[in-house]
């Protein structure tokens, strides 16, 4: 029996304000609150809230047969907490149905998987904690920022305890193979993979509202029929897309919500079920392993990482960011840790890309402005990090010094406790002695 596995990505970065050379050293607040608030309000109204409502309806109308999975980046969760807490409430409602799975990713929706492995691990843990705090479950399946995947990344993810991961069904990786099966990683045979079905996912994310498409208008029964018509042996259809497809990319007028609402009915008619990734991994075995030497993603025609680290500017910025990784982790200041996450969002690098000049959303006029602004902010950030501890001390030395200080602190504390205990015993003995007298 075929099953459809829906996955939606939700992310919003903390966008930077205009930060000039003279601000370096003087102004330590980097974010454009007005723009960020405005954007998340707009998207919550147009997309998150009505889409969540639609999902809930679909779960109810299908009698609990409809399943869906989300990954919400820590950045997006923080913004929702600040500006639109009603969205968090509506996700909690969805979580309560038991038909929704939350996946894990990097807290900052960052490129740490391509940079520093320790930072990557740290961010994933932070994301797991956040999901647990808000929704009461700890994620079991992983999906990396923008579905970036490679053999090295699969090793890291497996090392963190995950047994299942989502990624892109890129043509240059699959070749003649179909994405409608479960696969495993070539280097970690126990890590199962679900690959996005490009054609069906993009029918919804790209072509749904395009009048010039030969299949316009796409109706739910036609879509389900296509899925049902895939070969018998292909058991899982992976539909992965950005949640903004519902309402933001395709506004409500295109009929996208009605389309979704009709899906469970037609799927039931054709005997197609819905599953969460965990359920798929539990039921199906991998049919083959795939090897990915160079990182892939779900972005652009190339399905690689050139949108983020393709040109010299991006590589330079990414390099400078990773250079202070270790130092930041030694810092105890909360503001620095917070800014550190915000500065790592992949969006900052995306805006520096020279690949999509003219298309795509960017708060900057051109990639050079994006680079300039980001580097100014990063310069100020580096100044703050370096100001914490003297620059002459290397990270390892610093680390060992801090550990020594911590250990000594703990020792002193336990010695104090011992002294208190002995004092109390002495007091008690004295009392007994005087009583005996």
């Amino acid at each position, binding site marked *: 029996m075929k099953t459809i596995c829906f996955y939606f990505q939700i992310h919003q970065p903390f966008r930077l304000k205009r930060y000039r050379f003279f601000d370096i050293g003087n102004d330590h607040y980097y974010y454009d609150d007005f723009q960020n608030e405005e954007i998340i309000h707009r998207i919550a109204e147009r997309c998150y809230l009505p889409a969540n409502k639609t999902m809930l309806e679909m779960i109810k109308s299908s009698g609990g047969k409809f399943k869906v999975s989300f990954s919400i980046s820590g950045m997006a969760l923080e913004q929702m907490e600040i500006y639109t807490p009603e969205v968090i409430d509506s996700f909690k409602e969805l979580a309560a149905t038991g038909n929704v799975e939350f996946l894990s990713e990097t807290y900052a929706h960052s490129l740490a998987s391509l940079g520093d492995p320790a930072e990557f691990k740290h961010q994933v843990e932070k994301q797991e904690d956040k999901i647990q705090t808000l929704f009461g479950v700890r994620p079991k399946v992983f999906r990396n920022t923008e579905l970036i995947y490679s053999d090295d990344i699969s090793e890291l993810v497996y090392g963190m305890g995950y047994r299942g991961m989502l990624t892109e069904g890129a043509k240059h990786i699959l070749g003649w193979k179909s994405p409608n099966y479960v696969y495993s990683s070539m280097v970690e045979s126990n890590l199962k993979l679900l690959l996005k079905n490009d054609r069906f996912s993009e029918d919804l994310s790209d072509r749904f509202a395009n009048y010039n498409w030969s299949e316009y208008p796409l109706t739910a029964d036609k879509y389900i029929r296509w899925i049902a018509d895939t070969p018998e042996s292909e058991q899982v259809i992976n539909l992965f897309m950005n949640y903004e497809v519902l309402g933001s990319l395709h506004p409500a007028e295109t009929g996208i919500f009605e389309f979704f609402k009709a899906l469970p009915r037609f799927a039931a008619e054709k005997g197609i079920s819905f599953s969460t990734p965990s359920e798929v991994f539990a039921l199906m075995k991998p049919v083959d392993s795939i090897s990915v030497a160079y990182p892939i993603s779900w972005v652009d025609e190339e399905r690689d990482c050139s949108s983020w680290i393709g040109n*010299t500017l991006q590589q*330079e910025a990414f390099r400078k960011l990773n250079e202070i990784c270790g130092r930041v982790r030694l810092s105890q200041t909360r503001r620095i840790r917070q800014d550190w996450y915000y500065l790592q969002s992949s969006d900052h690098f995306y805006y520096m890309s020279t690949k999509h000049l003219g298309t795509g959303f960017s708060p900057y006029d051109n990639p050079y402005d994006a680079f300039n602004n980001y*580097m100014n902010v990063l310069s*100020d950030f580096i100044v703050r990090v370096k100001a914490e501890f003297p620059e002459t001390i290397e990270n390892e030395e610093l680390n060992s010094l801090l550990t020594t200080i911590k250990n000594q602190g703990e020792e002193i504390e336990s010695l104090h406790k011992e002294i208190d205990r002995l004092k109390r015993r002495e007091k008690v003995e004295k009392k007994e002695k005087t009583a005996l007298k």
Partner: protein
Amino acid sequence: MKALMFGWEFPPHILGGLGTASYGLTRGMALQPDMDITFCIPKPWGDEDQSFLKIVGMNNVPIVWRDVNMDYVRNRLSKVMDPQKYFDFRNHIYADFSYRHVNDLGCLEFSGRYPDNLLEEINNYSIVAGVVARTEQYDIIHAHDWLTYPAGIHAKNVSGKPLVVHVHATDYDRSRGSVNPSVYAIEKNGMDNADHIITVSNLTRLTVIEKYHQDPAKVTTVHNAVEPLDPEILSIPDKKGVKDKIVTFLGRITMQKGPEYFVEAAAKVLAKSPHTRFVMAGSGDMMNQMIQLAAKRDISDRFHFTGFMKGKQVYEVFKASDVYVMPSVSEPFGISPLEAMQCGVPSIISKQSGCAEILNYAVKVDYWDIEALADAMYSIITYPALHKFLQEEGKKEVDNIKWEYAGQKIRRIYDTLVNK
């Protein structure tokens, strides 16, 4: 002595050195009690300082007769021009230009900048100059920069008065030898028809003699100078937020100004002295290339681009700087190092710039010598004694470079021509 001057920019709406030089020169000359200057620019904004000269906007001079009355003209023009002058000009329209695209007052539009149709605007400017030349009274014509040479020639033909052309820059310089033929033609024509040619440096004088084939006796150098700073500007505080030393490049980011040498030298300095920051202030066609180059040399965290700085912002950048660098490949004069030295910032200039001829207390290097440039930058930021020396002596030297002296030299040239 009445002078009719043709220019293209005037402060506060300036785009480069031409506006600054025009202002300084006319201010300096106005100190002579019997000097009367009429200065024509394509598009005045109304906020120019007219206390020492009269500004005529070429976009308010009619070339086609329009039947309008005083009130209408006053409504339209009173902010920028005396309405009566409009009618004086109108009475001197000399040919039928009604086929031209003119506005309701019979005037041509000008952008006031350097648009794509620059040659067309230059031609229009010279047409309007014909009306002005026939209306105004003057003893001598002075055309600033190649854009106004056709206008100057036209005025000379109309009035028979001597023409002085002021070469602020040559296309030969700007293009490093591969001139634009139309621009070269205008420049040469202007120089051929002039009674005298003034250049802003000996460097430019040699270019004019050798590349434009002019008679050396006809060419004189009058070096540019710098306006003394307002106390308000002098008291601008150092606004930078970091303790690092700041090395600044301020100017158009284009081939002529040698920005790539600055970036390369910066990379060398940072290898030795990592607590330095480099600022490239300004904009231009090579800005994106420079951002790429800085990224390639791995110095983007210490190399900052500020974009175009207007008016007071320029001085804010100077006040925050420890060194000013002008590695120009070929600079006719270069007023910005003087402005920097006025703010107490030691300057490093290329030997191929005009101001090197008159500055003694600035460090001079060949523009292509990145090692020397890096060395100079390093020593000024590392040795406080050198910094102090250049700062003090430089300021003294520059305070003595006055537009008044330049104005006097020009007056002597005028006197020779008028009394011939």
